């Protein structure tokens, strides 16, 4: 089994044995943000705490890339989605080729390997493959 890393630290957390997207809640202005800022982007406060985000998102816009973008093979679909009020982000949509993703569609957040990367490990003086774990969306069943 390959070693693993999250696509970005601080955006995925474990809640009761289940992975969830994690944002930051400002204790001063009570607004949420994602991905994890150091200071609150609304008021500048450093009084931020981790908060689990909802598992459903709503599509603002989606499009399908038809050419290779290493390490991703075409076609693949990306969408800008709203997770909760004031949180808008981007992610991959895993779907059937026939399924069209449109504005307003509801998607469910899933977690898994997005791609592999090969890095040189100085300790073992050899290359190793790492599974990069992230989030993606699937049409809500």
């Amino acid at each position, binding site marked *: 089994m390959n070693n693993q890393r999250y*696509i*970005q630290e601080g955006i995925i957390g474990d809640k009761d044995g289940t992975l969830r997207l994690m944002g930051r809640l400002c204790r001063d202005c009570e607004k949420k*943000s*994602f*991905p*994890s*800022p150091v200071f609150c*982007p*609304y008021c500048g406060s450093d009084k931020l705490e981790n908060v689990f985000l909802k598992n459903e998102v709503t599509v*603002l*816009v*989606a*499009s*399908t*890339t*038809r*050419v*290779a*973008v*290493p*390490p*991703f093979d075409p076609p*693949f679909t*990306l969408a*800008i989605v709203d997770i909760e009020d*004031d*949180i*808008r*982000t*981007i*992610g*991959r949509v895993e779907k059937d080729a026939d399924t069209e993703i449109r*504005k307003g569609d509801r998607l469910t957040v899933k977690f898994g390997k*997005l791609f592999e990367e090969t890095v040189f490990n100085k300790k073992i003086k050899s290359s190793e493959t790492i599974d990069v774990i*992230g989030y993606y969306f699937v049409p809500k069943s």
Partner: protein
Amino acid sequence: MRDVYVLGIGQTKFGSFDELTGVDLGVMASIDAIKDAGISPKAIEVAYAGYCRGPSTQGQMAFIRLGIGSIPIANLNNACASGNTAVHMLYKDIAAGFCEVGLAAGFESLTQANKQAGKGLLAIKEDFGGMLGLTMPGFFSFVCKRLIDERDATMEDLCYPAIKNHHNAQFNPLAQYNKPVSYEQIMASRVIVDPITVLQCCPQSDGGAAIILCSEDYFNKHNVNHHPKVRVAASVLHSSGWLTTQKDPLFSQVNRETADKAYHMAGIDPKDLDFAEIHDAFSGEEVAAYEPMRFCPEGECIKYVREKYFDLNGQFPVNPSGGLLSLGHPLGASGVRVNCEAVRQLRHQAGGYQVAGARTGLAQMLGSVLFGGTESAVVCGIQILEKVD
């Protein structure tokens, strides 16, 4: 602050030049600018270089070949706005009185860069969206789809800038492509990201552009080539914040904020502009820029597109030079090039793409426009230039 004037401009032809480096192209453009200014290279007191790819200190490498040295020289990478950034830094130096005359050059050889990095779409590792596979055409496909959803744009509407700008470039001898394209040709070309096809994208290009700015006193004493007096009425460099990148890709907040600052600094209304040269890396991007830059009222960009308002002979020509779509886009050069184009128009030296009676023009570039919150920054540079009697 003092007024700042344009003493000289220079530009290479844009295209694919296998034997030339970015530095070579910077040298060529700077020589043209110095000759156009009619001054000695030894007169240059400060110099800035904008480029995105390749080794450090390329500005020094270029300028030293002209005999320019032992002065402050800085290299600036601000994505597609690198050239505007170089012009802006020079503008500030002269406006503040730190020097009387200086040079800003932008240059790039994407041919050389691609030899080293490989050609093709690249996800940017440092960008959160990029790590998920978002590319420039990917982001602008969102822009196009939002125009379809919210402005009832058709594909004909989204292709308008590509058709218009390729038409304009027929008259520009420095353009990479000098042939018109039809809607049918655009739609028949390869799909990159739905709904963007290859001919809705700007080409990868090599080229250089340079501009010499100076104080009013210096202009009055050294304008040996008797150029019309062109003043930099505004120069603004602005970046997005976390919240502005989180907003709707339909409406570029950084374009709006930068344009408003520039109009305020120049003391003009957008209606006072006679033309604009702007970032049109993708055809739909230009359509989406009309509203935030106040070239038309909000919600009405498609109405204006259908009226051909932005044609070379329209009410308000946008990208009369042919724009990035057909002139080409050597990243670091483009922000200086749009300033050179504006000067050419104001001097009435634009030949077949001259905007009749041009007196005030806007030069804009937008850089690094991926989406992802904290780690996706957008930079916008705008200069407004005006002819002074």
